[in-house]
């Protein structure tokens, strides 16, 4: 009965880990609580996206992760 939270890029450094398993289901309030104050603050920023089960959420505060879902925390990107 778990949701896997994945910390990507700079958020991995802040979280100090690559991923964490938490109990399902997981909503936005549960996510903010699960990730610790520093990551929660980052999640408040508009530039930080959240994906659930491979789909980027248009409104991350509507998160509803079920058992087996992977929730990825996606900071501002930079490629090329």
């Amino acid at each position, binding site marked *: 009965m778990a949701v896997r939270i*994945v910390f*990507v*890029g*700079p958020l*991995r*450094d802040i979280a100090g880990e690559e991923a964490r398993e938490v109990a399902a289901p997981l909503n936005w309030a549960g996510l903010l609580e699960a990730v610790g104050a520093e990551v929660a603050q980052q999640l408040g920023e508009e530039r930080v996206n959240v*994906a659930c089960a*491979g789909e*980027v959420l248009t409104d991350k505060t509507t998160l509803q992760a079920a058992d087996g879902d*992977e929730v*990825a925390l*996606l*900071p*501002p*990107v*930079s*490629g*090329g």
Partner: protein
Amino acid sequence: MQDVRLLAAPLVPGSLIGSFTNANPGLGGVCTFVGEVRGEDNVEALELSHYEPLTLPSMEELADRAIVRFDLMGILIAHRIGMMYPGEPIVCVSAAAKHRRGAIDAVDFCMDCLKSAAWFWKRELRGGVWHWIEPRAEDYADLARWKK
């Protein structure tokens, strides 16, 4: 002909472009951009992370959009992940079209998207310390040119 690759091993533009050009007979022009790790500012290494469920699918979607928008015959998008050193290629985008305008604009567009709107995270090693890199203001401005 659409060829989209996420590469954990060294990217060799010459070998990709040669076969890409041959795979698009009848083309009028091919435009290619290759981005490399710059050694300036004492950059010792560069590392690119990705997020498996999103990165390659979004690159494929970008290729689809470019083909339709610029009426391409073919497109190649190859992007490195992992650790790279100065002088190593990071990205290669090549577009084949009947006329040069479409080919050049498609490469311009794809590079702007890859730089600031694709699922990659970049950090540089300088003086033994890793620094996460965000797009420059110019990169966001470049991307905004394509909004319509």
